[in-house]
C-alpha cells in the first residue's frame, strides 16, 4: 500500500486544497441549506453481512481538558540544529528551495536553545505559505519530537469543514483559519492541520480557548450496524463474527434478533468481544493508567480477543515475541480480528484491528486524547502516514488451543 506522491497526485491534492480552502468555507459562510447533515453509509457486502455506518464526532471530555497544555498563539517551529546553517541545510534536504526558505523565514525571530533552534515566523508567513512549501516544511518538522502538532497533526478526513466542525462550538473565524492552514496528507487521504497555535488567536476567553481545542481535538468514530433479516442471515455470517471461536458464538444472538425484529439492525458493539466493547468510543481515564501508563495501539490489538487485558505496549521489549507467539502472518482477504500493522521507514508505527469491509478498531495514540474508535482503514492510514510511505501487513491471531467458546 505504499503511496509515492507523483506529480499528478500532488496537483490533484493542490486542487483539492483549493476546493477545501475556498468552496467549502464559502458554503459554510453562506449558510447553505443544512451543511451539517449527513447520511449513513452502506459498506460493500461481504462475509460479514450487510453493514451500515455513520460518524459520531467524539469530543474530548471537558473535565479532562485542563490536562492539555494550551499552546501559545505564536507559532513556534523547533529545529534540531545547532546553527542557522545547519537548519538551512536540513531545509534544503527536505526539498525547500532557497526562495521558499527566504520567503518563509523572512522577518522571523530565532532563539538558540542549546542544540535547538526555536523559530517564530511572522503571522503573514504562516498564513501565506503555499501548500507545497507547508507540506515539505511540516514534514521535516514532524521528524522533531518537540513539534507536537507537526509530529501528530490534527487529521481532517473531509474537505467539508462545515461537516467536520458540526456540533462543535468552534467559531467561524477559526474555521476559516483552518481552511487556509490545513494541508493535504502525503498519501492524499484527508488533510493535516499543524498550525493549532495560530488558531488560538481566535479565542478571546479561556472558555473559547477550550471550546476551540475541544473542537480541534475531537475524533470521528463510526457507529456500525449489521442489518439482519431472515433471508440474508446465513451461518456464514455467524462464522465470520465468531472468528474461528476466538470470539463468542454470535449466531444465537443474531437468530434471536431476527426472530424478534426481522429487518432491523444490530449495533456492532454487540458483536465485538468484551474488552473492545468496554472501551469503544471511550477516551482513556485515570484508572486506565493505574499501572503506570495508558493503553496504546499494541495494548488495544493484543487484548482484542482476551477476556482480561494484559499490560503490554508497543515499546515493550517482548512485543515482537508476543506477536510471533500469538499471531501469524496472513494474506488477504482480511478476517474479523486480524491485526493490521502500519509500517513506515522500516518500523511499525501503528496497528489496528480489522473488523469488516474497510472498517477497523483503533486507538490512534497512547495519550489521553485518543479514544478507542471504529474508523475506515484509509483514514487510519491518512492519520498516521506523515511521511507518505506506509505499507500494511496483516497478522492473524492463532486459533485458541483449548476451550473454544461455542
Amino acid at each position, binding site marked *: 500500500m505504499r503511496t509515492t506522491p507523483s506529480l499528478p497526485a500532488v496537483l490533484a491534492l493542490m486542487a483539492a486544497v483549493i476546493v477545501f480552502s475556498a468552496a467549502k468555507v464559502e458554503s459554510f459562510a453562506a449558510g447553505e441549506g443544512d451543511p*451539517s*447533515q*449527513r*447520511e*449513513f453509509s452502506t459498506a460493500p457486502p461481504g462475509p460479514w453481512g450487510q453493514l451500515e455506518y*455513520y*460518524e*459520531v*464526532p*467524539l*469530543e474530548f*471530555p*471537558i*473535565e479532562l481538558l485542563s490536562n492539555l497544555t494550551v499552546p501559545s498563539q505564536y507559532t513556534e517551529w523547533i529545529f534540531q540544529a545547532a546553527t542557522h546553517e545547519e537548519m538551512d541545510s536540513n531545509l534544503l534536504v527536505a526539498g525547500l528551495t532557497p526562495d521558499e526558505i527566504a520567503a518563509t523565514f523572512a522577518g522571523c525571530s530565532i532563539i538558540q536553545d542549546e542544540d535547538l533552534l526555536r523559530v517564530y515566523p511572522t503571522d503573514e508567513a504562516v498564513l501565506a505559505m503555499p501548500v507545497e512549501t507547508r507540506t515539505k516544511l511540516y514534514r521535516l518538522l514532524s521528524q522533531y519530537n518537540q513539534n507536537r502538532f507537526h509530529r501528530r497533526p490534527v487529521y481532517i478526513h473531509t474537505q467539508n469543514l462545515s461537516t467536520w466542525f*458540526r*456540533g462543535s462550538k468552534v467559531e467561524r473565524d477559526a474555521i476559516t483559519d483552518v481552511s487556509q492552514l490545513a494541508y493535504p496528507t502525503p498519501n492524499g487521504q484527508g488533510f493535516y492541520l499543524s498550525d493549532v497555535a495560530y488558531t488560538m488567536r481566535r479565542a478571546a476567553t479561556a472558555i473559547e480557548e477550550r471550546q476551540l481545542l475541544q473542537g480541534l481535538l*475531537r475524533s470521528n468514530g463510526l*457507529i456500525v*450496524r449489521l442489518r439482519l433479516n431472515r433471508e440474508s442471515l446465513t451461518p456464514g455470517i455467524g462464522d465470520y463474527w465468531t472468528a474461528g471461536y476466538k470470539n*463468542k*458464538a454470535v449466531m*444465537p*444472538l443474531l437468530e*434471536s*434478533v431476527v426472530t*424478534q*425484529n*426481522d*429487518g*432491523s*439492525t*444490530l*449495533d456492532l*458493539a*454487540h458483536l465485538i468481544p*468484551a*474488552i473492545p*466493547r*468496554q*472501551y*469503544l*468510543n*471511550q*477516551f482513556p*481515564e485515570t*484508572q*486506565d493508567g493505574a499501572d503506570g501508563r495508558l493503553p496504546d495501539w499494541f495494548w488495544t490489538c493484543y487484548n482484542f480477543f482476551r*477476556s*482480561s487485558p494484559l499490560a503490554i505496549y508497543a515499546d515493550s521489549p517482548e512485543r515482537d515475541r508476543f506477536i510471533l507467539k500469538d499471531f501469524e502472518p496472513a494474506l488477504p482477504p482480511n478476517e474479523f480480528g486480524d491485526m493490521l500493522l502500519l509500517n513506515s521507514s522500516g518500523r511499525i508505527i501503528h496497528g489496528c484491528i480489522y473488523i469488516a469491509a474497510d472498517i477497523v478498531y483503533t486507538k490512534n495514540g497512547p495519550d489521553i486524547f485518543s479514544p478507542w474508535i471504529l474508523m475506515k482503514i484509509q483514514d487510519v492510514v491518512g492519520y498516521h502516514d506523515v511521511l507518505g510511505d506506509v505499507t500494511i501487513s496483516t497478522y492473524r491471531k492463532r486459533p485458541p488451543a483449548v*476451550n*473454544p*467458546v*461455542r
Partner: protein
Amino acid sequence: MLSVFRRLHQPLRVAVAGILLTLPLPLSIVNGNEPGTLLPPVERTITSGPWGTLEFYPIRLEPPTTQLWSSLFNSRTIWNFGILTETGALAELGKLGFSDEALDTLRSQGVWGRTKSGLEVIVPDSVVEAVTPETRVALADWLHDNNYDFYNRIIINIEGGEFSAFTEDKVAPRVLALLKSLSFKRNKVLSFMDLPYVMRMIGDDEEEKVDFIKVILSTKSLMVRLVVDETTDREAVVAYWSQGGRTSRIDSMVRGVESTVGVDKIDIVHLLPPLPRRYLNAFSRVSDTGAINTPDCFWASVHFFQRNPSPRILDALSLEHYLAHDFIEVEVEGEGEGEAELRFGDLVCLMRGDDNSFLHSYVHIADDIVYTKNGASYVHPFILALKSDMMSRYPQDGALKTRVFRRIQGS
C-alpha cells in the same frame, strides 16, 4: 408492584405489535431505522419519560457450551438431605406429602449413601414420576430452608415463567411435554428440579441434551435503543444518561444520531458506562472469579460506574462495607416525604421483608428496565431486563423492602 416503582413522571409505554399504523409515530420507528421499507410488525415496546423515548424488544441468550458444566448432564436423580439420617429424611418427605407408596419405593429401591456433602439417595424413576406438583413445591421449599446449597444446584427457575422459549426447532414436543409434567409454580415462578430425569429420557442424543439445557437455562434480555428525533429534548436526555457528566460521551452520541439523515435511534450499549458495556449480554469468565466467589448480582450492580472490576467485591463482606462510603442511600418515591425518583445508575437492593436479609440487587436504567445478573452461576448473563422478568427468578414469599443507593460522584 413495589411502591418504589411508581414515579412522578408517568411513563408512556405502548406495545407496538399489531397497532403500529394507528400510532402517530414516524414510519422509521415502525420498521427499524430507515423509512420506506415496510416490514411485518414485531413485538417492540416504546416507553417515554425523563430518559427520552426508548424502544426495546426481547432477545434470548443461551449459555455457550463452554459454560455448561459436566454435572448438568448427569442422568441419575439424586436428592441430598444434608445431615439427616435415612429415617429422618423419609420422615421429612412424609411430612411434605410424599405418598406411602413412594416412600416405600424410596426405602426399598433408592440407593442411599453418605457423601462429603451429606446424605444422598439415588431416586428411582417411579418416584420421580409420582411426585405431584404440590409435593415438588413442598420439597423445593424444604430444600431452600434446610439445604440451600443443594437447592441452588437442583432448582432451575424458568425465565419468564412460561415455555415460549421451548420452540419445536430446539426442543422436541415429547421432551417439552415431559418438562411441563415435571415443572411446578411457586408464586409466579416456574421451577423445575428434574434435569437428570429428562437427560435420561432423552437418551443418547448428546446434541439434543445440549439444546435442552441451553434453552432451559436461557435468559431473556432486551435490546434497547434510544430514539432521537425532532421531538427529542437533547439536553434533558443527555442529562439523564450522563448523570452529572459521569458519562460525558453521551452528548456526542446523541448529536451524531441527530445530524445523520436516516438514523433515528442509538443502541443504549453506547450510553452505558464501560464496565456494564463490557459484560452486557455476556457471561462470567474464569478470569472474573475469585477464591471463594464468582460475579453475582451485587458484583454487577456495585461495579456499574467503575472502570475496572475489583477482586475485593468477591470477598465475603457485609453490604455496608461496600456501600457505606462510596454511596448514599436515597429515599425514592413512595418511601417517604421529599423523596426523589430513581435515576439512571441507582443501585437497588431488595431485602426480604421478614428478616431484612439481602435477596437481590440490580441497577436502575430507565422506567422498568434494569441491568442485572440473576445469580452467580456461569450460565446467567449480565442483561438488560424488565423487572418483571428479573423477578421471575426469585420465588420469595412476602413483601420485599427496597433500599436505593446512589454512587457519590468521584468515588
